[in-house]
């Protein structure tokens, strides 16, 4: 299953240090934007590392993450980078646009610096290309397949052969 994932992702998630924290985000009522939450819900009991689902309010996890003080953070969210639906990529932080801040939405890439000003963790953003972010529940087959591959990779039982 992990064959679906690119080498860079396998290398990020395989042999992931126990001190890593996985943060997922997204809105389950916007179809594939809910992929982060889908992954978190299936990982909670069977993950190599700790998982926090930030859902639609990433700003609400600030104190919890600072208290945990992980050395490494992997953020998993839907990300429109123009790829084929279900494509998974490591997103360089500088490619994440500064979305306008309002009382209604504080984007994850604004929240992460608040956390990192205190704990200085190494942050890696993993984006999954959505097929649809229309109103509605459930993931598209392409995105679900990618999500399942990520879950497989992060599962305790899984020992993925390290790619070279």
């Amino acid at each position, binding site marked *: 299953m992990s064959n679906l994932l690119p080498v860079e992702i396998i290398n990020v998630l395989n042999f992931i240090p126990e001190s890593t924290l996985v943060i997922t985000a997204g809105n389950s009522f916007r179809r594939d*934007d809910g992929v982060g939450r889908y992954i978190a819900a299936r990982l909670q009991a069977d993950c190599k590392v700790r998982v926090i689902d930030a859902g639609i309010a990433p700003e609400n996890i600030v104190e919890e993450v600072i208290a945990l003080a992980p050395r490494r953070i992997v953020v998993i969210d839907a990300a429109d980078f123009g790829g084929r639906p279900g494509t998974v990529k490591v997103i360089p932080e500088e490619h*994440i646009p500064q979305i306008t801040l*309002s009382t*209604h939405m504080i984007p994850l890439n604004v929240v992460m610096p*608040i956390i990192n000003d205190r704990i200085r963790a190494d942050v890696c953003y993993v984006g999954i290309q959505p097929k649809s*972010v229309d109103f509605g529940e459930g993931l598209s087959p392409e995105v679900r397949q990618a999500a399942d591959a990520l879950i497989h990779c992060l599962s305790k039982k899984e020992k993925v052969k390290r790619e070279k």
Partner: protein
Amino acid sequence: MSEKKTIRVNVGYLTRVEGHGNIVVNVKRGKLEECRLDIVESPRFFEGMLRGRSIFEAQHITSRICGICACGHTLASIQAAEAAIGFIPSLQTRKLRNLLLDLEILDSHILHIYLLVAPDLLGVKSFVPLIKTHNDVVRRALRMKKTCNDICDILVGRHVHPITAIVGGFTKLPQEKDLDTMLGQLRRLQEDMGPTIELAASLKFPVFERETEYVALVNNEEAYPLLEGEIGSSDGLRLKKEEYRSLTNEFVVPHSSAKHTKAGRASYMVGALARLNLNYAKLLPRAKALADRLGLRPPVTNPFLNTAAQLVECVQCLEDSVGIIEDFKTNGVNEDEALVVGLNENKRIPVKAGSGVGAVEVPRGILFHHYEVDDQGRIVNANCIIPTGQNLNNIEHDMRKLVPEILDKSEQDITLHLEMLVRAYDPCISCSAHFLNVKFITR
């Protein structure tokens, strides 16, 4: 020199407000030729969506109008539906609804003061630089916001878009342990309120005066009215909530997809400052003491001070919330009032045809929902008038007075002042969904 000045301000995308708005100002040889706030959002047709739907599901639809005022829309919706069918909610239900409004106003005001207004007054472009320079302050703001969200979760089943608040009451009522949890969280929030007041009290607001008509709920009760009352104005207007159209007198302007309103004067203002101007005497002691410290004795006619009034309301809503929960801890919660989830299939709430108006004070001002309902409880017609729509006309009148007074400033300063003025009203032009949109450049 300013008498002959020519300036052209065109803020094509006003930041730190919700939705899309443009500020356009033209001054030619010292004469103001054009001054407007363009609203370029497309209409959302919520009233159309409500037609044919049951009043028992309307609040789930209307709460989606806004991600911040979701509880306010829920309560205005429920109030309109209950008025239409002649249902009178219990005292316990009204107290819980008031608590919900307190928390939502607190949550919204905290975010507005800290994240959207403070950057202007601290001389930075946005909240982002404050992460480095004022990290403790930013974390405090988010901690306070989270507390409001968490209590909302306990009270109505979700951070936003309440589930348990329905026509007739609540489907889930707080248990003793819930009351203890909420009270503990509010006590911790009280600790953060002290430094919040000190910070906000140190901020200097622009000096500008323009008296207008201030509109808010008024009633004969002792408490600061948020949930119940008649429409009142600082010009002595008193209307039953059913007569809301005599207040709003909505009209269309070419540059705005949102309708404008006016009552006795050319425009009127709703929101924290309007509420404070009309109901100062009803503030709880700590809130009133803060209002006095900030020099907010009615009539307050500087619209920039809407932010200061919001701070006063933060204290008001926090103290009121604590009082409501303590009251429930003393007198208990009657769990028998819990309703069954659904669309009133058990017919516990009697339904009849009618027309009803909900008028509720939400963070940005008085909100109206008006439903006409058939004998099956289906909505035949709906009308929603949101506070920001009511403020747009007043903002433009403020702009027209402000610009000639600041013509001696640089164009950059004039632009900043205009942006700050609009932001002071905390306008909510639309709501957007959370989605990480990345422009990825493949190498």
